[in-house]
């Protein structure tokens, strides 16, 4: 436990002091600010028009926050690799990985410590991203529960990205290769299981349907926190952290 925390603390400090982190966060906040403001303006225009015409009241969560959450997800897909690419690749290249391998700690400690560092950093992006809808509380009235449910979904989804990217980072010494691999993997999550429903096998259809990340994240955004979705995300995270642990361990017997 102590080893995990020691590694996580060190890596987090390195990541959080890297200029790339601030640069990517800057890009994110710029895009979010621009788009969020525009969609709020449009929403207020349309909802007042709808109210004037006696129509149904519009829900800010689906019209504004839904888009914003999609945008958080989109940017995080590209920003997390920029940070996590270093986690293991750099250590392998600079030789410090040998220090970890010859210390009295297990491969599991290394994988979990690194994961924790990456995840804590990713939470900063998510937190900053959700400041926008939270800030709206000051002048709009909406269901906070729905927002928190979506936040949980995004946090879990981000956890998957970090695990995936940690695994990618463990595969190579080159940061460049690592970041490319990370982005490809992150993006492919969204396409990989699409269109599986066309198969004629019912069981296969059900399995592929369950493997769709968009569907699970959608549940959270629509406010349903289902155990099956939480377990789905956690098991994907576990799977990739486990793979990373195997890669780290393999250095001992290769």
């Amino acid at each position: 436990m102590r080893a995990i925390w020691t590694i996580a603390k060190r890596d987090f400090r390195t990541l959080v002091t890297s200029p790339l982190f601030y640069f990517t966060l800057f890009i994110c906040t710029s895009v979010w600010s621009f788009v969020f403001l525009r969609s709020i303006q449009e929403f207020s225009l349309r909802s007042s028009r709808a109210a004037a015409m006696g129509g149904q009241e519009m829900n800010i969560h689906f019209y504004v926050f839904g888009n914003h959450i999609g945008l958080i997800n989109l940017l995080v897909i590209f920003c997390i690799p920029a940070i996590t690419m270093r986690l293991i690749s750099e250590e392998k290249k600079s030789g410090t990985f040998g220090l970890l391998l010859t210390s009295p700690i297990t491969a599991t400690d290394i994988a979990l410590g690194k994961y924790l560092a990456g995840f804590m950093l990713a939470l900063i992006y998510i937190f900053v991203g959700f400041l926008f809808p939270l800030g709206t509380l000051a002048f709009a009235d909406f269901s906070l529960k729905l927002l928190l449910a979506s936040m949980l979904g995004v946090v879990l989804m981000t956890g998957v990205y970090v695990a995936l990217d940690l695994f990618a980072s463990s595969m190579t010494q080159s940061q460049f290769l690592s970041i490319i691999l990370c982005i490809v993997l992150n993006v492919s999550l969204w396409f990989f299981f699409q269109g599986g429903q066309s198969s004629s096998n019912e069981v296969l259809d059900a399995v592929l349907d369950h493997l769709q990340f968009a569907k699970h994240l959608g549940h959270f955004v629509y406010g349903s926190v289902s155990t099956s979705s939480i377990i789905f995300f956690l098991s994907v995270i576990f799977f990739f952290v486990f793979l990373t642990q195997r890669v780290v361990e393999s250095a001992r017997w290769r």
Partner: protein
Amino acid sequence: MIEVKNLTKLYGERVAINNLNFKVRKGEIVGFLGPNGAGKSTTMKIITGHMAPSQGQVLVDGFDVFEQPIEVKKRIGYLPENPPVYMDMFVKDYLTFVANLKGVNKKQIKELVEKAIEKTNLQDVSKRMIQNLSKGFRQRVGIAQALVSDPEILILDEPTVGLDPKQVAEIRKLIQSLKGQHTVVLSTHILPEVQATCERIIIINQGQIVAEDTLDSLTTRMQGSKRLHLRIRKVNGVIEKLNKMAGVTSVQVNGQFMDVDYDGEENTVENISKLIVNDDAGLLELRHENIGLEDIFIRLTSEGGLQ
């Protein structure tokens, strides 16, 4: 303390080390000597658990490196060829981090970090970032890192590379001061280093041990043959006669200079000098040459064995 049995490591088809067997006793300082690519680093990596052997076993304090790596790693401080330092950390933070990794008792960390800094003379740079340090300082940080957990065994892979002569002397003194309390294995291809620090030497070449003994007995064993250094004006006439002479094992000529290896008998020296003087070849110089570690090393690693 360290027991290496039938250790073999293959990199694909290439044999890096082949059936190594040796023991290091507690408190000993052992030099691991060999030309580049002899398999020194590979052996050290296997002992520290960084790498697994293809065959064979390593026991450290009775624990198998492969079966109980955690127990083994607790006891070892390791300095690899390139000091494993994080460029973006401060020296003191880095050493504290390593102490934490090694599982040092929390209350002792501060004290041990201070001690390691003191031993390696890093006081002046302890608050600087490692990427701003010179190669020599980084190397010293690497040594401090190996020392910081106060391990029973220190494995140092070329510890003095990149240091200036004064620092080299300091590090050698430091290594000598560890004698008795720590077991030290150090690899190097710098011979005076071994002469200055080690009690026992293991010479390795092409993955095999070619000699394993104390420095003194290695030198005496090699002194079965002795060497005369000669300078003669007219070399050509005497070469053949010297070669044929009883007791002379080899003759090497380089211009006016001549190195003659012989069996060590005084009669032979007498005969050699008699021959040159009688031949009127113009003897300018005749002296005994001590065969040092350097010669032993070159002989062992080029001819492939003491036998």
